[in-house]
């Protein structure tokens, strides 16, 4: 082997190794132990402490979805102290690797595992069937799965979207509200509808224009979508995904902005209205505590404004006192049950009646919502 061939070979090998490393990094990622195990208690009985693990689709510093879940994990670690050892895996892609990540977590002795992205569902269910002694909880997962040690959790974010819709309509002069949607799947459609119903409750002429970018992740496209909504006459922009890109488009034209899933009021003080946000901590605490106590019960948890799972981020300074009062009033009515945001009559955006007067959309139908309400285009 002459020198050149050798060099070439070794470099290719190095290249392959690098490739392998990097791909792996995304899957294995960092692990942190938030609370040290009690000394000498590593083999302690389940009743003393529990190992709990989280599988995140993004990085914990994403300032949005994953950051909010990690705040929930820290809440559990803080509240339970030495009774829990928490672990997380970040940047886990929705693909074949996730099954291995979950199996590794089981092998490490985790007795309750949370996965925070819809695409993790199949791997979670497969592991749940194999390990009956471990609880598997799938965030945003589909309801009514029969596996006994598998549950789902999410929340009625539509309630907060409805309130955000009021803020948007009150801030709009033209009545045209722009919404940047990642994909028009039932969850996003439900949120758009709630926002439109809220907007039209205070301005019956309000219109919500939707642009679907067909990507979960493309900040440039999100900004382009917001730009195109603005040139089409929308004077308030609402986020369907959690990147700040639509806010940047709004900021360039000094237009009000409704974010999603993180409080960006400090970064966009002049245009910030509010954002529907999540508070995962109490749910996580309840699950981990009950798993430790042996009182865990399978459920499809659906949080809401009432139990504090859903909330609105602090209002920006451009939200008027009247609007704040109105939103607080509606929020109180949602919480005490006197306001059902999907109460009929509701028409779809082609004019056909979908919900009769006096009727509403059932919980299961909300999960499968596929039609846009009147005023959305």
């Amino acid at each position, binding site marked *: 082997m002459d020198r*050149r061939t050798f060099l070439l070979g070794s470099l290719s090998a190095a290249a392959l190794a690098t490739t392998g490393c990097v791909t792996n990094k995304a899957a294995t990622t960092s692990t942190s132990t938030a609370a040290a195990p009690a000394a000498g208690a590593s083999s302690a009985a389940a009743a003393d402490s529990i190992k709990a693990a989280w599988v995140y689709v993004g990085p914990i510093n994403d300032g949005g979805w994953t950051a909010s879940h990690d705040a929930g994990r820290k809440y559990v670690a803080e509240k339970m102290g030495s009774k829990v050892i928490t672990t997380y895996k970040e940047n886990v892609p929705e693909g074949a690797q996730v099954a291995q990540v979950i199996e590794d977590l089981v092998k490490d002795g985790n007795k309750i595992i949370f996965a925070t992205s819809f695409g993790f569902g199949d791997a979670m269910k497969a592991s749940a069937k194999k390990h009956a002694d471990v609880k598997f909880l799938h965030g945003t997962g589909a309801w009514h799965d029969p596996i006994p040690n598998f549950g789902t959790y999410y929340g009625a974010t539509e309630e907060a979207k409805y309130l955000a819709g009021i803020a948007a309509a009150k801030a709009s002069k033209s009545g045209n509200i722009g919404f940047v949607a990642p994909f028009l799947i039932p969850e996003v459609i439900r949120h758009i509808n709630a926002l439109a119903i809220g907007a039209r409750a205070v301005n019956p002429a309000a219109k919500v224009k939707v642009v679907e970018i067909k*990507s979960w992740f493309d900040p440039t496209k999100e900004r382009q979508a917001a730009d195109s909504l603005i040139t089409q006459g929308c004077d308030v922009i609402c986020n369907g995904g959690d990147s700040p890109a639509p806010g940047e488009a709004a900021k360039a034209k000094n237009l009000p902005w409704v974010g999603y899933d993180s409080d960006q009021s400090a970064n966009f003080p002049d245009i910030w209205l509010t954002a529907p946000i999540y508070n995962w901590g109490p749910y996580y605490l309840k699950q981990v505590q009950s798993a430790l106590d042996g009182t865990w019960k399978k459920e499809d948890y659906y949080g809401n404004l009432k139990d504090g799972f859903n909330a609105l981020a602090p209002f920006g300074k451009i939200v008027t006192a009247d609007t704040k009062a109105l939103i607080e009033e509606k929020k109180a009515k949602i919480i005490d049950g006197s306001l059902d945001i999907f109460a009929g009559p509701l028409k779809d955006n082609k004019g056909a009646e979908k919900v009769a007067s006096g009727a509403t959309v059932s919980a299961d139908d909300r999960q499968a919502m596929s039609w846009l309400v009147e005023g959305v285009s």
Partner: protein
Amino acid sequence: MNDSIVMAVLISAIFYGTPLLYAALGEVLAERSGVLNLGVEGMMLMGAVVGSVISSRLDAPGPIVLLVAFLAAMVAGALTALLHAFATITLRVNQTVSGLTLTILAGGAGLSSYLANVWQLKDPATHQFQRLNIGGLKDLPIVGPLLFDQTLLTYLSWVAVAVCSWYLFKTRTGLNLRSVGESPSTADAMGLNVVRTRYIHTMIGGAMAGIGGICFSLSIVPTWVDGMTAGRGWIALALVIFGFWRPLWVMVGAYLFGALSSLSLILQARGFAVPPELLDSLPYIMTVVVLVVVSAGWSSKTLSAPDALGTAFEREAR
């Protein structure tokens, strides 16, 4: 007038075409020297992340911070390209393999995201390239928003196109560069330093990709997001072929691709349902058509790729 759909498309064509233009211009220079660098996406992200951290952390007046960020992004892109240059020119590794490795190494799941994590980038960059309303002329019909309401990055990109064009076709060193890309052994026999020429132009290519990166991180979406270029490095590569390795045509292509990327969203906002996938794939389809035209030999030979593109130069080999 300035609100019409045509204007909306033209305005976004320039704004979103600018990073493509920088990256593709850089790649034109590299490919003209015979080095195919598929690492554009990775080099852009390295420039983007370095520009972003300097904008947020350097404590100095805005224009100085932006100047330093601009230069640092060029250095970051050039150093990333240096890896490729060393591997392909000195070690003569397959250019395709090395370029792909570079994108994986530096890209969305690699070094750029790692650095962003270390530097804790999550808030909007402190200093950003804003639109400059030159001479207060931005409200003129048609030309106002197109010519007088751009960011400094866009104005510089126009200068870069002119300079690259002049350099490639009107200067002696440009001629030398082209001969290195067409036939390195002839160039070598003429006494040109093939290795040095290739190193320099691969690194200039990286520097320009780095500028393309800060178009994202300091202008389009001034908050760092891992992998924020989302595949636009690949569009830039297609653009080089689409523009027949010529700066002016690359500029036309960059704006065409920029327009196409916004068109489906603009049409959606106006109530026309066009599948975005269709328009998003058009740049690639057009590139394939151009490739077919070029390789079928209908066009003059001067329109095709540099002859030695993708091949290593060995003095002793023939």
